[in-house]
C-alpha cells in the first residue's frame, strides 16, 4: 500500500493555499477538476480506511445504500452555485469542502459501489446525468449571474462542461446497455 502516500501527498498539495487559489480562480477548474480530484482522493483512500475499520463500514453501510445517499447529498450540495461562492469567501466552507468531498463523498462511494445492485448503479448514473443536464442548462441559459465571484463567461463555460459530462455519461449508459444486450443474445 505504498501508493497511499502519493494520494496523501496529492491531497495535501491540493489544499495548499496557492494551489487551491489557482484552481479556484477559474470556475470550471474549481468545480470539474478540483472538486472531482477531492472525490477521487477519497475514493483512493477508502481501502485503507476499510482495512482499518472493517466493522464500521459493515455495520453502518451494510447494503451500501446509506453510503450512496451520503454521496448524493454531498455532491448535490456542492453543485449549488452558492456553495461554490461561499467556499471562496468563507474559510470554514472551504475547509468543509476539503473534508466533505473526500471523506463524505469519495469514501462512501467506493465502499457502497461493490455492495449495491446494478440497478442502483445505473439509477445513480442516470440521476447524475439528469442533474448535470439541469446544471448545464441553468448555467448556460440563466439570465442572471449566479455566482458573485465569477464572470458570466466563466459561468457559461462551466455550463458547457456540465453538458459535456452529461453527454459522456449518456454514451456510457448507452454503451453498457448495448453490450449487455449483446451478451444476453
Amino acid at each position, binding site marked *: 500500500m505504498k501508493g497511499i502516500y502519493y494520494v496523501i501527498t496529492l491531497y495535501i498539495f491540493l489544499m495548499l493555499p496557492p494551489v487551491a487559489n489557482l484552481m479556484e480562480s477559474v470556475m470550471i477548474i474549481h468545480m470539474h477538476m478540483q472538486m472531482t480530484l477531492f472525490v477521487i482522493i477519497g475514493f483512493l483512500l477508502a481501502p485503507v480506511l476499510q482495512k482499518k475499520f472493517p466493522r464500521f463500514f459493515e455495520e453502518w453501510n451494510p447494503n451500501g445504500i*446509506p453510503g450512496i445517499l451520503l454521496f448524493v447529498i454531498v455532491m448535490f450540495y456542492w453543485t449549488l452555485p452558492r456553495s461554490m461562492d461561499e467556499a471562496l469567501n468563507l474559510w470554514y466552507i472551504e475547509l468543509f469542502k476539503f473534508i466533505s468531498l473526500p471523506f463524505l463523498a469519495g469514501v462512501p462511494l467506493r465502499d457502497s459501489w461493490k455492495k449495491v445492485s446494478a440497478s442502483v448503479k445505473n439509477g445513480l448514473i442516470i440521476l447524475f446525468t439528469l442533474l448535470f443536464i439541469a446544471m448545464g442548462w441553468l448555467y448556460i441559459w440563466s439570465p442572471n449571474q449566479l455566482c458573485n465571484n465569477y464572470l458570466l463567461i466563466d459561468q457559461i463555460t462551466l455550463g458547457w462542461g456540465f453538458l459535456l459530462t452529461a453527454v459522456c455519461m449518456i454514451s456510457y449508459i448507452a454503451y453498457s446497455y448495448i453490450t449487455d444486450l449483446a451478451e444476453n443474445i
Partner: protein
Amino acid sequence: MMANKKKSLLSYILVAAFGLVLFYLGTDGFTAYTSEAARVNQLKDETPMFPEVTLEDHEGRVYPFSEFEGKYVFITFFYTMCGTVCPELEKNMAEVYDMLPEDVIEEDIQFLSISFDPERDTPEVLDTYRDWLDSDGETWRMARIPDQAELDELLDRFGVIVIPDEYGNFAHNSAFYLVNREGRLVEVMDYKKTEEAAETVMDILEGGGKK
C-alpha cells in the same frame, strides 16, 4: 443481528438528518440558493447606514451624501463604459422614475446613479450619460465618489461586488437600493422588475409617512 439492523436504520436517519441540516444551513433555511440571494436577505436584515462619502455629480458639484437627508434615495451602481447590464439597469431606473407620481419625485425621493469607475467617469462623461437617459439632473443625478477608500467602504457595506476583467470592464451584481430618510438601507429590489420596484417604493413611502 438485531443490533446490526438497528444500526443500519440509524445510519439512514443520520444521513438524512445530515443532508437536511447541510441544505438548511447552506441555503439559509431553503431561502437562498445563490450568494446574491443570501446577500440581499442579509442586507435587509442588517439595514446598513450609508457611509459618509463625498459625491461629485455630473455638473461637478461636490457635496456629502447627507445632502439628501430627509429624503429617500433610490440608488443604482453603474459605470458608463459598461455595455451589458448597466444600460438596462439605468433604463429600468428611468422606468421606475417615470412610474412614480410627480409630487413624490419633487418632495420625497432622490434618484442617484453612483459610478464605481471614478477614474473614467468624470463629470463631463456622467453628464453625457445623464443626457442619454433624459434625466433632469436634479431629481435624478449621476455622481462619482472620487475617493477610492470611501467608494470601497460603500461598496463593501452595500455588498456590491465589482470584479475588473481583463478588457477594462467590470463584472458586478446589480440591484435597486433604497435608502431611507435617515440614510439607512431599507430595501434591495430586483432591477428587472420595475413595476414591482415602483410599488415597493410607494408602499414604503406611504408607510414611512409622506411629508
